[in-house]
């Protein structure tokens, strides 16, 4: 691991950014509560917090994407009235967004000059920009072809374009919002080297992440946010992951869920050499082979975007297999040829997808309508031709009772439930069908703390009831605390398997980067 501990040379210098009492509400949601923040010049400053803690909102306010309801922003000691991105850019602030703000059909150069074209006609500006871009590339070792079409570049390179965009605009302060979410560990390391170079050149970097590993590795100072409030500022050298995670969550979390030994039975799911392509025809899952047995939880770990989503979607019948086969209780259920989500459900596969909003919920529907998604053909919900809304209401009320969904009103629009309650409703819908196999992706993403424990317990209860569970999560903690066996995916390939007992972050991290499991364990042994 590339290490970059804080140098501690911060002190009396004027802070590059100072936020005082920033306050922001979205309707009923208090996203930022009177936030104060100081970022010293020439440092890498981390901001950590759970999903939904308000980190991105805060940075979007700094970048002029949103207007704060209250508070002031000072850049280099001067009060700045930032009304839009153009003001932030003028103040020397650049931002690399979580979802890149790039025009995919444009070349690198066109993307870089967008907004600072240097004249009404492109030609003059473009030539100057090309020279300047080459200088920046040399200076920060950001190698990239200025004429490449951005859509053809890898995610890592696209991120470099974003950084170049900011530098080209003369940014002295660079904000990166969850920059490693889509990167492999190696790419992430490269990114951190770039950030170190930036720091050496005197730039200030603000790094938003929820990954403590990155904070410890890359930052000088760190601020912690929890539920819209700024709860602590620390020098990275003087804190520990344990302290930070406690600050983030607000209480000591049980990293290991109390659960009994697994008692695996017969093989329920058998996947043989499965290949899955995405809509563009790019192979995302390459020859995956594994089994899931009754009474065990198999976890799939990996950096997001390495094929786990496609694998889960294929097993759920949403994507077709390009090659290979899938057996469920020894019967062929290879997705595609006649086997879709409906067919799999009939055979006892329940699926809690990764992206609840996009997939498992229709937010415009009422709770009871959402509660039959995928099961609308069920005779229990139908009279001869008409839907039996009375029975559906009753079933929904039952789900709400069993899974503690609040408010327990089957006629309320799904959109009016909190994320945790929506997730509980989805789990209820899928689990209460008593399936043979539960596919579950990112079960606690965007879910409040209280609900996480509940959800974890229900998943373990499924296992203990002798069901097979396949869990996909990018949260290593979650994988390690829930899974009995862990498969690691990298670039569409299942790199290897580790038992829950021998798993730790280091080994999994190396495997996620594509290192062979045996080698990874050996490296771990040396360390």
């Amino acid at each position, binding site marked *: 691991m590339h290490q970059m501990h804080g140098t501690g040379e911060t002190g009396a210098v004027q802070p590059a950014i100072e936020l005082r009492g920033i306050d922001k509400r979205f309707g009923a*949601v208090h996203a930022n509560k009177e936030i104060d923040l100081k970022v010293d010049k020439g440092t890498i400053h981390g901001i950590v917090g759970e999903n939904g803690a308000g980190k991105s909102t805060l940075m979007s306010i700094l970048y002029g994407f949103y207007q704060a309801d209250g508070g002031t922003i000072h850049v280099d000691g001067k009060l700045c009235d930032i009304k839009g991105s153009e003001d932030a850019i003028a103040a020397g602030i650049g931002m690399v967004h979580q979802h890149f703000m790039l025009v995919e059909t444009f070349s690198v150069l066109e993307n870089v000059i967008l907004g600072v074209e240097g004249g009404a006609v492109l030609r003059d500006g473009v030539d100057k920009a090309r020279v300047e871009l080459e200088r920046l590339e040399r200076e920060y070792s950001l190698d990239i072809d200025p004429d490449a079409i951005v859509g053809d570049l890898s995610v890592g390179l696209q991120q470099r374009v974003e950084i170049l965009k900011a530098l080209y605009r003369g940014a002295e302060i660079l904000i990166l919002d969850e920059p490693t979410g889509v990167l492999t560990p190696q790419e992430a390391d490269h990114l951190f080297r770039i950030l170190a170079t930036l720091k050496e050149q005197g730039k200030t970097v603000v790094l938003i992440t929820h990954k403590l590993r990155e904070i410890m590795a890359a930052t000088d100072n760190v601020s912690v946010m929890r539920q819209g409030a700024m709860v602590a500022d620390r020098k990275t050298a003087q804190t520990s992951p344990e302290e930070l995670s406690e600050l983030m969550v607000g209480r000591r979390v049980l990293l290991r869920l109390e659960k009994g030994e697994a008692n695996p039975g017969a093989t329920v799911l058998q996947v043989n050499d499965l290949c899955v392509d995405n809509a563009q025809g790019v192979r995302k899952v390459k020859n995956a082979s594994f089994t899931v047995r009754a009474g065990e939880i198999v976890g799939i770990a990996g950096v997001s975007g390495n094929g786990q989503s496609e694998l889960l979607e294929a097993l759920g019948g949403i994507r077709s297999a390009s090659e290979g086969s899938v057996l469920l209780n020894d019967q062929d259920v290879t997705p595609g040829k006649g086997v879709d989500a*409906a067919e799999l459900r009939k055979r006892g596969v329940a699926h809690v997808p990764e992206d609840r909003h996009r*997939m498992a919920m*229709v937010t415009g529907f009422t709770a009871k*309508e959402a509660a*039959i998604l*995928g099961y*609308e*053909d069920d005779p229990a919900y139908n009279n001869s031709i008409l839907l039996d809304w009375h029975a559906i209401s009753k079933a929904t009320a039952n789900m709400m009772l069993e899974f503690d969904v609040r408010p327990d009103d089957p006629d309320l629009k799904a959109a009016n*439930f909190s994320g945790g309650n929506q997730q509980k409703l989805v789990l209820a819908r899928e689990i209460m069908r008593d399936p043979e196999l539960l596919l579950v992706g990112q079960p606690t993403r965007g879910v409040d703390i209280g609900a996480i424990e509940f959800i974890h317990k229900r998943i373990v209860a499924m296992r203990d009831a002798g069901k097979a569970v396949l869990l996909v999560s990018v949260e290593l903690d979650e994988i390690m605390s829930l899974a009995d066996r862990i498969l690691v995916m990298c670039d569409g390939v299942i790199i290897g398997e580790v038992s829950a007992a021998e798993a730790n972050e280091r080994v999994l991290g190396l495997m996620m980067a594509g290192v062979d499991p045996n080698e990874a364990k050996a490296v771990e042994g040396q360390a």
Partner: protein
Amino acid sequence: MSNVVQLPRWIDVGVLPLLNLLLALVVSALLVLAIGENPVEVVEILLYGAFGYDEAWGYTLYYTTNFVFTGLSFAVAFHCGLFNIGAEGQAYVGGLGVTLAALYLDFLPFPLMLVVGMMAAAIFGAAWAYIPAYLQARRGSHIVITTIMFNFIASSLMVYLLVNVLRPQGSMTPESEQIAEHLRLPFIHDMAAAFGIDMASSPLNLSFVYAIAASILVWMFIWHTRWGYAIRTVGANAVAATYGGIDPGRYIIIAMMISGALASFMALNEVMGVQHRLLIDFTAGYGFVGIAVALMGRNHPFGIFLAALLFGMLYQGGAELSFEIPTISNDMVVVIQGLVILFTGAMEHMFRPRVTKIYTAWRLRRDRMEAA
């Protein structure tokens, strides 16, 4: 988590559409003033023309019949997330189906023809909708553009058929032969006369009863069957539909074919009910009125019926208008129609924030008073 204030239904489906309608009417009234006529007089004539005498009612409901069908057509596709701009062409081709059935199967007894005519219209209309639906579902072709194109293609095709195939020997007008007398839909006034009720004669015919039945069936289908559920799921969130095992492509095709069939039922009214032959451009823009009707009726059959009645009134009253005030033609009705689509369709969000604010304030005050 959510910051969306859920407005009660009576505001959502009652107050907001009415506000938008009101705005459309106010703008129209200003236009009438600008032309130098008296809006009050115009409204009087409109209302008199629509309801003032026995026969007017019949005409109003006759137009309503068309608009119910085209409105339902738009709504069914809309529930599946599709903009079917092609009702015009689908109804046109549906008319061909009815005509062919009536001309070539004229040996059938009337009760059988009732069914056969309806099926012929439905099959032709659905078939015309099938191609854009298939292209949208399986090849991702934008259905708005393809349905517009198909309106024009239908128009060319029908001109060709009417001029070269269907036009009887020696006739100069591009229209088909008359369909046999015993195959025509009975007029409501004739049916009433059979029961000894005296009604003024008007083009209102049996298809009005069809329209009401179709409204009820569509309502049942959309909200009370699993297929309707599937269609709504596809419309609201196609990814979730796939996740749930509902093939969006399949339901896009189903919804569009139902939509095409509903649009083509308009031809029952026009061809079997009133004109008794296939005329060039018999659809006369009624397909487009369907868009306004569905948007105003919030895509609910009951709302659609009310909106169709409103437009039926405007059409019939508007015809009267052009008889009475030469400076105002029935183009006034077209203007109102455009404004209604603009305000209730494209600018539907204009009043919502303000109404929400007023409603929330009112609720807060009420709650506080109750607490006190």
